[in-house]
């Protein structure tokens, strides 16, 4: 397929094409969906190690004396509680309580917060944050200054350790260190979107190709595979991590999305707080829940969910689970039915197919 000239590319674009990756338009970016195959890449991450080019992800820097106040005003989680070198998952909401985006917030210094945001939402997020900035803080749309690689899987640490003097075993889950990878300044975070252990590193775009090649070389002894967005999706779904545009969007609140753990209503005022308080007071009408197919078929994004023949909700994501060898998915259901063990039917090409709601995450790595 020709890539439309308007599609944006990462510094690794030619590398992906050289690896014969299948490329797709992902939110305006020409990105690899798979190299050797989604299932093979998925297993590489669960069993050994895989590397993803996630340089399309956006970065926004918030700095200045009131950086913490601005960050807390625009996000749902309690940014001021982060320690320097710590990160957390958070929500960027509209006044209505719906999501502008879901993001990671990294505290670099008392006066410096670093946000990692979804690629297709970067400009919207930046404008949203700027319009809310009534504080003594500067906001910078910094996506151009960073490339990001995700090295994920049980052999991620051994793969990356050979390339950095930073003792990776001292970085705790959802903490990060600024150091060097292959002699280049890098932010090394113990974070990921796969449900597996691993690291996400932010490096200068000019060094991305060299570091990608070194990571592949270093991981070769473990059977490292370059992994595309297809495996990223099946991995995050097994771990029940939300994907913007699927589980969450402007019409969905974090309470409905089963993300109340990132909402700190008692931290003080933030955008969307009043709407969430009202929603909590009135009671939720719908909630996200996981399901497994019982009948033959895969309930996919957008398919209608029925209970006793009556339309009840919709599927947000659905896929075969390569790890569990089941067909799994997430859907919204009325609150009264949004509990594990509920029999549902999913309309697959106009036919109701049996499924049942289940506990999530579908997959949890052994500690």
């Amino acid at each position, binding site marked *: 397929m*020709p890539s439309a000239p308007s599609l944006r590319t990462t510094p690794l674009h030619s590398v992906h094409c050289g690896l014969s990756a299948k490329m797709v338009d992902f939110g305006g970016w020409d990105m690899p969906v*798979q190299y050797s*195959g*989604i299932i093979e890449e998925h297993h590489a991450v669960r069993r050994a190690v895989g590397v993803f080019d996630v340089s399309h992800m956006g970065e926004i820097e918030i700095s200045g004396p009131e950086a913490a106040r601005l960050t807390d005003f625009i996000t749902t989680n309690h940014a001021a509680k982060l320690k320097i070198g710590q990160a957390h998952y958070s929500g960027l909401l509209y006044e209505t309580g719906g999501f502008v985006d879901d993001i990671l917030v990294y505290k670099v210094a008392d006066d410096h917060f670093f946000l990692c945001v979804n690629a297709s939402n970067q400009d919207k997020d930046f404008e949203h944050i700027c319009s809310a900035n009534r504080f003594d803080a500067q906001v910078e749309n910094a996506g151009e200054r960073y490339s990001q690689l995700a090295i994920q899987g049980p052999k991620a640490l051994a793969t990356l350790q050979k390339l950095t003097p930073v003792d990776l075993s001292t970085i705790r889950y959802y903490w990060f260190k600024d150091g060097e990878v292959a002699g280049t300044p890098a932010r090394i975070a113990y974070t990921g979107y796969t449900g597996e252990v691993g690291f996400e590193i932010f490096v200068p775009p000019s060094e991305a190709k060299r570091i990608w090649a070194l990571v592949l070389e270093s991981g070769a002894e473990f059977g490292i595979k370059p992994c595309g967005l297809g495996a990223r999706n*099946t991995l995050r779904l097994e771990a029940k991590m939300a994907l913007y545009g699927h589980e969450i969007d402007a019409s969905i609140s974090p309470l409905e999305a089963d993300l109340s753990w990132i909402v700190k209503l008692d931290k003080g005022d933030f955008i969307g707080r009043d709407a969430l308080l009202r929603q909590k007071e009135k009671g939720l009408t719908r909630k996200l829940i996981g399901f497994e197919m019982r009948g033959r078929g895969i309930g*996919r994004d957008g398919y209608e969910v029925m209970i006793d023949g009556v339309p009840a909700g919709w599927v947000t994501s659905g896929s075969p689970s*390569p790890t569990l060898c089941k067909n799994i998915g997430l859907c919204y259901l009325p609150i009264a039915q949004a509990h594990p063990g509920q029999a549902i039917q999913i309309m697959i090409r106009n036919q109701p197919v049996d499924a049942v709601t289940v506990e999530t995450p579908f997959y949890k790595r052994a500690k």
Partner: protein
Amino acid sequence: MYPENFRYTKEHEWVLAEGDTATVGITDHAQEELGDIVYVDLPKAGTHLEQGKSLGSVESVKAVSDIYSPVSGEVTEINAILADSPEKLNEDPHGAAWLVKMKLSAPEEVKNLMSASDYQTYIGAEK
């Protein structure tokens, strides 16, 4: 790669016609584009198919795709191995992983389809 004795459609099916019988499948290019195939839905033997109309569907990890019948006629046999081993379609789409055998009602339709070299030009241009 693309057998000379097959005929091909723009929707990436192939047909091997011998007199008024035919074997139908999807092309190597199709399986490559689909990626890991996890389900194959085929019609029952005895079903009448129209050229260009739905024959069934294949589902990969990523998505569902319709398959269109390259010719008109009656399904005489479906490939039973695909129910349990859909991944065969990734491995041998022009051979062991054929989809259906048919009795043709209009054997001349095959002439409207692409030759191997035309098909290769077609998918080359699509890239």
